[in-house]
C-alpha cells in the first residue's frame, strides 16, 4: 500500500508540473499575439503613409503647384515621415522575428518536456497498475478476510476470501451489507464499535462471529485501520478479519475450566494452594486468608510457614524435601486460626502436576482441618475406655450383690427372687444413666419415680394410691451417687412392699425432698422417706435386716462413697429414713467424665 501511495503522489506532482508548463506556454502565445497585433498595426500605418506619399507624387507631376517650393517641402516632409515609419517597422519586424524565434524555441522545449513527462506518467501508470495487481493478488491470497470502506464507513471493496468464506449465504456486503454476515448476537456491538471508531478516527479491534458458507459461525479477530492523505484526512478504512476460532473456543473452554476450578476451590472447606518445587507457594485460596488472616501475597514462597505452629515447621519443611521422590506430599501440622486465636490440627496433602513423562510443573495442595476429628477421636478413645471400665465395674458390683444376696438367702428360690430384683434395679439405673441427654445429669425426681414405678402405679403428679412424692423437679445428682442411691431406694421400696407400709391396705409412703443449706458452690439434697399407718408392727418385721444388703447400702455405702449423712429407723407409724447428700450446683456434667 505505501508504494502505491508514493507512486500516486509522484504522479500528481508530475501532472502539476505539466499544468504549470501549459500555463507558461499560453502566456507566451498571448504575448506573441500581442506582438503580432502591434506589427499589423504598424504595417497598416506604413501602407497608409505609402499611399499618402504616392498621392503627393502624383499631385506634383500633374500640376505644377504654384509655390513649387511649398510642394517640395510638403513632399520632403512626407518622405521623412515615411522613412521614420519604415525604420520603426524595421525595428518592430526585427523584434517580432526575435519573439517568434523565442516562441518557437519555447514551444519546442515545452513539447520535449511534455513528451518526457508523459513518458514518465505512462511508466508510473504501468507500475501502478502492476502494483495494484500484485496487491489484489496478495489480498486474495491471504487467509484473512479483507475489505475497504470509504471515510464514512461504507464498504466498497472485499477480497476474494470474503466471498469464498461467506459463500452464497452472504448478502451483498457493500455499504453496510457485511453486517448480515455477523452473528445476530454480535451485530449490535459490532455496529456500535465501528461507528465509534469512525467518529474517533482511531483503529478498532474486536472479536466477532462471522458466518461461513456452511452456515456455521466462526470467531474472527477484526481490525480496522484508517488510511489518511497528506493533510491527515481519513480517505478510507481497511479492515482485516483473522480466523481465531480455535483459539477463542480454547480460551473460552479455559476460562470456563478456570471458573469451574475457582468455584470448586473457593467453595470447598479445605484451604487450597498451589506451589512450585520446594514448597514455594504461588497461590492460595481466599479460605487461607479468611482462616489464618495472612494476606494471599504474604503466603507466597514459604510465607505460609509463618502460619504453622513453630513446633511443626521443621516437620513441614522436611515433608517437602521428601515430596519429589515420594511423588506426593503428606504431613500433619497445626495452622493458626485467626478467629479463635489458636492453632488447629490440619492434614496437608498435595499432588504434583506434570505432563505425561514430563517433569513436575507444580503442586496442587489442600490443608484440611482435622482438629474436630482428632478431638472426636480422643473423646471416642476416652469413651471406649470408660465403657470398658464401667462394664467391668458393673460386673464386679453384680458379683458383690450376688455374694451378699447369697449370704442372706435361706434357699435357692429366695436367692433367685431377690437377686433378680436387684439385677433389674441395677439394669434400670444403667438405663437411666445411658438414656440421659449427653452432658446432662440424672435428676433425683427421675430416679425416685423410676424406682417406685417398678413396684407401684404413679400418676403424673407423683401420686399413687398409697404413695406421695413431693419435692422440686430437676435436682441434679452426682454420677457417683446415682447407682448406689438407686440401689438403696430399691431396697427401701422392696422392703415397704413386702414388709412395710405398702404391705398393708391403710399404710402410706411419703417421700419428700428439698434443697438445704444452699451455698454458691454447694447444695445439699435432703430426702425424707416416711412410712405410716402400720398396725401391729414389730421392728424386726418391718425394718431391713440389720446385717442385710439394704441397710448396708444406706448406712455404709452412701456415707463411704459420698460422705452422705443417713439415718434409718422406726417411727410411730413405720420405717423412717433420711439421706442428706451433697449435689452439684449445675445440671451439666463438668469437664471430666464421672465414673
Amino acid at each position, binding site marked *: 500500500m505505501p508504494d502505491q501511495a508514493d507512486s500516486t503522489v509522484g504522479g500528481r506532482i508530475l501532472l502539476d508540473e505539466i499544468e504549470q508548463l501549459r500555463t507558461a506556454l499560453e502566456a507566451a502565445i498571448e504575448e506573441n499575439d500581442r506582438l503580432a497585433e502591434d506589427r499589423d498595426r504598424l504595417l497598416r500605418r506604413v501602407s497608409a503613409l505609402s499611399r499618402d506619399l504616392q498621392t503627393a507624387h502624383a499631385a506634383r507631376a500633374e500640376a505644377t503647384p504654384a509655390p513649387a517650393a511649398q510642394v517640395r517641402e510638403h513632399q520632403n516632409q512626407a518622405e521623412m515621415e515615411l522613412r521614420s515609419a519604415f525604420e520603426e517597422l524595421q525595428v518592430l519586424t526585427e523584434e517580432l522575428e526575435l519573439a517568434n524565434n523565442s516562441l518557437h524555441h519555447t514551444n519546442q522545449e515545452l513539447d520535449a518536456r511534455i513528451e518526457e513527462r508523459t513518458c514518465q506518467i505512462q511508466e508510473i501508470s504501468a507500475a501502478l497498475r502492476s502494483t495494484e495487481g500484485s496487491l489484489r493478488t496478495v489480498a486474495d491470497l491471504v487467509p484473512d478476510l479483507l475489505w475497504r470502506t470509504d471515510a464514512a464507513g461504507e464498504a466498497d471493496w472485499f477480497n476474494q476470501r470474503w466471498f469464498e468464506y461467506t459463500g452464497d449465504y452472504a448478502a451483498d456486503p457493500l455499504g453496510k451489507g457485511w453486517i448480515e454476515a455477523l452473528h445476530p448476537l454480535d451485530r449490535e456491538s459490532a455496529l456500535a464499535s465501528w461507528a465509534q471508531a469512525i467518529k474517533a478516527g482511531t483503529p478498532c479491534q474486536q472479536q466477532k462471529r462471522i458466518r461461513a458458507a456452511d452456515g456455521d459461525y466462526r470467531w474472527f479477530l477484526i481490525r480496522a485501520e484508517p488510511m489518511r492523505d497528506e493533510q491527515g484526512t481519513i480517505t478510507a478504512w481497511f479492515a482485516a478479519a483473522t480466523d481465531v476460532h480455535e483459539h477463542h473456543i480454547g480460551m473460552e473452554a479455559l476460562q470456563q475450566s478456570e471458573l469451574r476450578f475457582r468455584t470448586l476451590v473457593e467453595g470447598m472447606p479445605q484451604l487450597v494452594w498451589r506451589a512450585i518445587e520446594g514448597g514455594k507457594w504461588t497461590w492460595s485460596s481466599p479460605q487461607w486468608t479468611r482462616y489464618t488472616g495472612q494476606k494471599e501475597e504474604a503466603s507466597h514462597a514459604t510465607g505460609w510457614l509463618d502460619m504453622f505452629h513453630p513446633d511443626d515447621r521443621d516437620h513441614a519443611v522436611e515433608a517437602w524435601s521428601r515430596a519429589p521422590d515420594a511423588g506426593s506430599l503428606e504431613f500433619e501440622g497445626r495452622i493458626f486460626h485467626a478467629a479463635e486465636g489458636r492453632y488447629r490440627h490440619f492434614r496437608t496433602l498435595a499432588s504434583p502436576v506434570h505432563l505425561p513423562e514430563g517433569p513436575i510443573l507444580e503442586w496442587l495442595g489442600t490443608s484440611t482441618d482435622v482438629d474436630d476429628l482428632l478431638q472426636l477421636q480422643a473423646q471416642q478413645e476416652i469413651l471406649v475406655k470408660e465403657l470398658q*471400665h464401667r462394664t467391668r465395674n458393673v460386673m464386679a458390683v453384680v458379683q458383690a450383690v450376688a455374694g451378699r444376696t447369697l449370704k442372706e438367702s435361706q434357699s435357692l428360690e429366695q436367692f433367685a427372687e431377690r437377686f433378680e430384683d436387684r439385677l433389674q434395679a441395677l439394669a434400670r439405673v444403667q438405663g437411666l444413666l445411658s438414656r440421659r441427654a449427653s452432658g446432662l445429669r440424672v435428676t433425683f425426681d427421675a430416679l425416685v419415680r423410676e424406682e417406685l414405678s417398678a413396684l407401684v402405679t404413679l400418676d403424673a403428679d407423683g401420686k399413687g394410691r398409697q404413695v406421695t412424692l413431693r419435692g422440686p423437679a430437676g435436682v441434679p445428682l452426682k454420677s457417683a451417687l446415682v447407682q448406689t442411691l438407686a440401689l438403696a431406694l430399691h431396697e427401701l421400696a422392696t422392703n415397704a412392699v413386702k414388709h412395710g407400709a405398702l404391705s398393708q391396705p391403710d399404710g402410706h409412703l411419703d417421700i419428700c425432698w428439698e434443697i438445704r443449706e444452699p451455698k454458691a458452690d454447694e447444695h445439699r439434697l435432703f430426702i425424707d422417706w416416711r412410712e405410716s399407718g402400720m398396725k401391729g408392727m414389730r421392728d424386726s418385721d418391718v425394718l431391713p435386716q440389720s446385717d442385710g444388703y439394704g441397710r448396708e447400702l444406706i448406712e455404709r455405702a452412701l456415707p463411704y462413697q459420698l460422705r452422705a449423712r443417713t439415718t434409718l429407723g422406726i417411727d410411730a407409724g413405720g420405717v423412717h429414713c433420711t439421706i442428706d447428700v451433697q449435689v452439684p450446683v449445675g445440671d451439666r456434667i463438668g469437664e471430666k467424665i464421672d465414673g
Partner: protein
Amino acid sequence: MASQTLQGCRILIVEDEFLLADDLAHVLDDAGATVLGPVPSVRDALELIAGEKAIDFAVLEVNLHGDMVFPVADALVARSVPFVFATGYDEWSLPERFFTVPRLEKPFRPERLSSKLEPLISCGAQQHH
C-alpha cells in the same frame, strides 16, 4: 477360713465402689492383712498415705468416679510401695510409666485374690518366715 498368708502386711485399698471395697477388705482381712482404708477418693488416699508411716502394699482402682488414681500411684512410687491396679482398663489406657504395674482385672474372685497378691508382696512378717 483362708490361710493367713498376708499376716502382718499393711495393705491400702483405694476403691470408690463401696461393695467392692468392702469385699476386698474382708478378703485381705481374712488373709491376715491389716487393711488401711478403704478410701474412695484421690484426696482421701493422699491424706491417708501422708499420715501413715508403714504401708507394705496397695490395691488401687484406676478410675475413682472420674478422677484418675495416678497421683496416688506416684506418691506410692515415691515411697517405693508396690501396688496393683484393680481395674477394668486395659494396659493401653494407662500412662506409659505404669505399663509395668501388675493389673488385677475386674471382676476378680475375692477368694483367689490373696494368692495372686502374695508373689508381689514382701512385707515384714513374710520376710521373717
